[in-house]
């Protein structure tokens, strides 16, 4: 059993919600809409431009932004069926995601270095 963020789920994957993070209105709204512990959820799809995403839960369709889906942890019970093409596509996506992460990390490191230099000057 793997736990991952709702935003990282793939189309047709389903699971149960483990935890809802965040604070204030966003969190309360998620809870009110039924995004609560142990609720079953199916990831439907991402919008044409990759964001927001559409999920099915408690018998209705809900759309939320990736930034909001990141706040929800899901235990994946049923992975999407894989065929050759889908698997390749997934690999490509994962590669892309890894590259993006690497880029972001590099950026973060640069920013930190800059800040440290600033601190040093002070």
């Amino acid at each position, binding site marked *: 059993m793997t736990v991952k963020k709702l935003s990282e789920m793939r189309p047709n994957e389903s699971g149960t919600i483990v935890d809802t993070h965040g604070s204030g209105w966003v969190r309360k709204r998620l809870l009110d*809409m039924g995004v609560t512990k142990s609720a079953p959820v199916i990831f439907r799809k991402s*919008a044409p431009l990759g964001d*927001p995403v559409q999920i099915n839960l*408690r*018998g*209705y369709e809900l759309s939320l932004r990736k930034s*909001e889906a990141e706040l929800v942890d899901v235990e994946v019970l049923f992975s999407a069926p894989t065929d050759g093409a889908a698997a390749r596509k997934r690999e490509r996506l994962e590669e892309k995601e890894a590259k993006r992460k690497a880029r972001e990390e590099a950026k973060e490191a640069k920013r930190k270095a800059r800040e440290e230099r600033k601190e040093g000057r002070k």
Partner: protein
Amino acid sequence: MITIALAGNPNCGKTTLFNSLTGATAHVGNWPGVTVDKREGTCKKGSQPVSVVDLPGIYSLSPYTPEEVIARNFILDSKPDCVIDVVDSTNLERNLYLTTQFLEMDVPVVVALNMTDELDKRGDKIDAKYLEEVLEVPVVRISAFTGYGIKDLINRAIAASSRKRRGISVLASTAVSDMIAKVAERMNDETESPVFHAIKLIEGDSVEREVHKKSTAYADELLADFDDEVFGKDIEALVANERYNYITAHYSPALKKKEGDNKKLTKSERIDRVLTHKIWGIPIFALIMFVIFHLTFSEDFLFLGAMGAFGKYRGDEAQWICFEGSYFEGLFGSSDGINSPGVILANLVNGLTGMIQGGVTDGLTSIGTAEWAVGLVGDGILGGLFAVIGFLPQILLLFLFFSILEDSGYMARVAFILDRIFRRLGLSGRAFMPMIMGFGCSVPAMINTRTLADERERTATIRVIPFFSCGAKLPILTAIAGGMIGAFGVGDAGLITFLMYFVGLVVALASVLVMRNTTLRGTLTPFIMELPEYRAPGFKSTMLLLWDKCKHFIKKAFTIILASTIIIWFISHFGWKWNYLPDERMGESILASLGSLIQPLFTPLGFGAQLTDGLAGAGWVFAVAAITGLVAKENVIATFGTLAAAVVTGFVADEALGGVDAVTKLIGVTGISGAGCIAFILFNMLTIPCFAACATAKSELPKGKFKWTLLFWVVTSYSVAAMVYTVGAFVWPIAIWAVVIAAAVAGIILFNIKAKKKAKAKEIKA
């Protein structure tokens, strides 16, 4: 008379129910959150007449959104005799979540299981008797759409309102039940609905904690000792969780799904496969938009004319659709093509109103009425009114199409598709619809912004809607672009028109970005939105909506617009000595002298003081045309027509040219430059819109925002037009403008960084 409140989730059919109870015409849409304010009506369908209040749709009674606060305060403070909780039975679990909160209040509740017709169609069954037992309140099966069960519902609500009810909670056997009981007991003397308030205090509801300070202290004491093994001190999550758990365990069994139906894709899923498809989703949306505008505004339906479908019938032989010489000239089309339904309707209305106007003028003249009185009634009153009513067909048609999209559930998908793009500007995907409607007419577009959740987002959107150049501004574009070609012999009218549209779009998006970073700053509201099931829109509710819009618009036309047209007519047809002036002598009118007075203000825009040296001393025409445009934008070109007749000797306007000849002549006699012409177009496009749009903006904007909006329009139009003129005429001011813009952008960015730092510092302190 007893009062019954209608409450429930957004999009559960509440407003449809309200309409069929009261016969009123509240706006219905298959879009979460159409009813923003509460509305009232009287229902005479039950054993006695009752007053019905339609509350905004909400998902919960939390304190976070204005809708939720309105609904909650109404039930707690105004104390309706009964609450009808409308539940969408195709979406039982989430709808009953709100029900569990109503049950905690000391108010009679009747649950209306709506959309049972939809349920029957699917073959699902719902056991109302069972639900009645477990909820301990009356449960009635209804269908607001077909009218089934409505009489029964209202009678049971009347019966229930005479019996007092104490709040009960589904949280009674959970980890927090002890705390709730203790706090509720404390609050018993203090307030009604103690159970409800107690739960809110424990949950940490900010609004409630402000009001009940004493009990809050007590609740905090209890909370200090509380620790759940799963949720810890996170009561908010615990309560939401327990509510849903209770619903799944005790209420959900009431719904029996048709067997073997789980694996089949539902209708909505199948439609979504196409309409929100990864690749086709956006092109399909663009196509739908294009078809709507084509049906409403095109004068070459299906491009039959452009494709040469008329062949030899082109030119003079196309008489059969032209009605030449009558009021209905060009009703069905011209030699260039057939009209779209929208244009045919508009022509029909314009033909009829033109006939009335002509008849009245002739009638008055024949019985020997004074010339000025004929002018006042014919041109001033009827002309002004009919100019506005002439828009009605196309506005209504546009409304019809958009309300079909809304009712069907597609609008929510549009927000889903486009959210990514609009987030960059600080708006949500829902802002797109009103903006694109603006290309047709600002009035329905501004009303449509009601679907935006955030007030600041809404204000920003309403303000930029006029920049999406509407149908009435198109003649300004085409006439002046045509005139420029006639007078200067350079340029391409189509290109100028397109560029102007584009500039409007850029200015709109830029000003949204600026506003969201300065005066209308605010965090981006979360986009946690239900995607409702697709439904065929009801004929009756759509027609009710159209009738409502129609009434609204006509009312406006007969009040504010009528008054303004009369005033404009008077000052353009009378001189300072109260002497009547016929059209040809408008140059001596009060309006003309006022025009020359304010004319210098437009000097930086290229149609001000520099024009007084023109051949006929008629430089004020542009200033005056801009002012008359404030009533309705088609006045601009109409004014050019009358003024050209007044200042150019021997000029006779050729109606078929749509004012192009008048503009060409006026460019010639006033000596306005090309840059000045472009600046004039831009000023008219971006400045204060017509009276109808202003009146709509005033009623749609939050209180106190309208005067700032007017200022925003004036400043934006003036500076953009000035920038274009000065750069176009002298080139070197480009340096100054670049510096000014750079400074402004830098200022905003710096200010925001500072504000962010401040907020962070505050956070750390807290």
